[in-house]
């Protein structure tokens, strides 16, 4: 590996990028647009949630709890029913998204200062709205529970009665939330952009006839791959930072872990994703073919097989095995771990190691593909 040659290639690629401001703008706008569309659409505020009430208790206590729902602008009580059946039908017709079911022994348990439960039924087919509705409903129940405890605690030293919301989400047990979505989106965005950026770079040289010239120079395939990769790394890193900044400051996703660790691990992932793009690019001599292939093998796996939306644990065995070869899967865990749980290297090292191995393998094959001959 020769430093001077690699540097010359990186500099040349950087000039190509700067000389094409339209593509550069598009590359930098892409994460912003994707994040805003995905993130915003998924975290839209929800109000006037169509709600059904099934009050088996029919007591002042239960009516007090229902008053809590009536008083909230987030809920609109459509009907009070006296069986499960109408709830079922209403959910199927999408006339109701949430049903509050108060059990018969509700007032009795409160009177006995026993913990008691309220059932919340949610239509999980609109999972995002359901998640938000669940949050609000739990808040109403919690507020009622709090209200009970205060007078009880002041009256005597007895154990306070508490009311717990017993949530059952129908149709989609894995709920999404914007905190969960945004870090995952960063992973998907980095993967797509990097693979797309990389996918054009070699195919363009074939189309313009410059590849033949390059192959006649002493520049080695690994130098070619690394030179190209480092130029696009700058663009990819800018995209990644935009995505992270938007996530933290616009979507208020808590970043609990180390920023440095997040940047380092993102860089490893970016390197592998760019390597994949360059490898694909070297396999096709037309930019169109390379771009389509790059999108296909980056976007779909990153979106579907990374655990971004669909839990890998629920997938068929074969697909689970396939997902082991999707690097986004490992980075998904790393990104969410750092963002949401504040995990450190001691827990993430294995995933990071896998990402490094992946980057190395992809880079090796990219360089190998560039070694090919003209015809």
């Amino acid at each position: 590996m020769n430093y001077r040659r690699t540097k010359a290639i990186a500099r040349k690629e950087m000039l190509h990028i700067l000389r094409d401001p339209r593509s550069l703008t598009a590359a930098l706008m892409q994460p912003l647009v994707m994040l805003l569309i995905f993130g915003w659409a998924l975290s839209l505020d929800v109000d006037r949630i169509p709600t059904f009430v099934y009050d088996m208790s029919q007591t002042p206590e239960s009516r007090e709890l229902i008053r809590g729902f009536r008083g909230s602008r987030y809920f609109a009580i459509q009907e009070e029913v006296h069986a499960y059946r109408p709830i079922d039908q209403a959910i199927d017709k999408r006339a109701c998204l949430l049903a509050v079911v108060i059990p018969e022994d509700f007032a009795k348990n409160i009177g006995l200062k026993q913990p008691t439960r309220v059932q919340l039924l949610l239509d999980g087919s609109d999972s995002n709205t359901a998640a938000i509705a669940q949050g609000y409903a739990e808040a109403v129940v919690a507020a009622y529970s709090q209200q009970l405890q205060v007078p009880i605690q002041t009256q005597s030293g007895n154990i306070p009665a508490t009311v717990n919301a017993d949530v059952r989400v129908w149709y989609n047990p894995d709920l999404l939330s914007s905190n969960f979505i945004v870090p995952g989106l960063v992973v998907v965005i980095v993967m797509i952009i990097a693979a797309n950026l990389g996918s054009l770079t070699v195919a363009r040289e074939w189309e313009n006839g410059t590849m033949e010239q390059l192959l006649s120079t002493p520049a080695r395939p690994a130098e070619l791959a690394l030179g190209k990769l480092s130029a696009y790394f700058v663009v990819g890193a800018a995209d990644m930072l935009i995505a992270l900044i938007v996530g933290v400051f616009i979507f208020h996703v808590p970043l609990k872990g180390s920023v440095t660790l997040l940047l380092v691990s993102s860089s490893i992932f970016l390197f592998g994703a760019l390597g994949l793009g360059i490898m694909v690019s070297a396999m096709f001599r037309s930019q169109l073919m390379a771009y389509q292939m790059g999108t296909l093998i980056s976007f779909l796996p990153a979106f579907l097989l990374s655990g971004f939306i669909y839990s890998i644990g629920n997938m068929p065995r074969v697909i689970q095995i396939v997902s082991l070869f999707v690097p986004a899967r490992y980075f998904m865990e790393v990104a969410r771990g750092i963002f949401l749980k504040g995990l450190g290297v001691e827990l993430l090292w294995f995933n990071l190691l896998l990402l490094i191995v992946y980057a190395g393998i992809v880079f090796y094959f990219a360089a190998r593909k560039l070694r090919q001959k003209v015809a």
Partner: protein
Amino acid sequence: MLANSQSGPAVHIDKLVKKFGDFVAVDNVSIDVSQGEIFGFLGPNGAGKSTTIRILCGLLPPTSGRATVGGFDVETRPEDVKHNIGYMSQKFSLYDDLTVEENIEFFGGVYGVSDAKLPARRDYVLEMAGLEDKRRAMTRTLSGGWKQRLALGCAILHQPPILFLDEPTSGVDPIARRGFWRLIYDLSDAGHTVFVTTHYMDEAEYCHRVALMYGGRVIALGSPEELKKSLGEGNLLNLDSSDVRGSLSVLEGKPEILEAAVFGAGLHLKVRDPGIAIPRIYEYLKQAGIHVLTLDSITPSMEDVFVSLIEQEEKAAA
């Protein structure tokens, strides 16, 4: 200026064969090119010239046979070959979105020209190519002739002992072509070996030696003078007459005439013995009522050699 430490031929090609499936692009070619030589590779399109050059540059693996460039085997030591060559491919292949200077600096970088040497080499190339005023021009704005000069300049930044130029002057106007050949001569004088393909016959005259390729094979090899001699100097006649087509049909097939071909406004006739043939030609044409304007012995041009050899090949194939 050039460090030609290695003795022996600059390019050595031995029984080289390249097949693409059933198609034989290069058919058992053997050539030696000496150092400092301007070696021309002639032939119609599809004759196998570019394929041979690509093999020599390490861009294509040969099917069989062997080739060394600068003493290095193209198959086993392509990296060493690449350090010793400059290559200009048929298609213009610089970066359109880089300036003249940026292209030079890029190729200087990949050819491993040191930072200390690069400014001097860059200035040399700019001067050689006459591009000093256009150093900051975007390459896409240059006309064909300038682009060719720049491409040549980029190929010689690292002072390679051997240059491969694949149809460097195609699509360039005659004045620019003349200028380009002057550069090739300068490079040859400086010790560079130049291996150049062309289908312009006048350019073949500028080469020290030429090989004529046809159907993947070398059908003639030698200096332009030798090739012309082989055609039989003095046995070629130029006929200007009142009816070119008429005289062709009259003379074709006559025992004294070996070959007859329209050439410019007249006919070129290849004969065995001009002393006998000239009076007979006058006679044939007089009988046909065609008026002879001039009938002289001429020195054959490379084009005559080319046409004659290819016709022989086609006759042999038929």
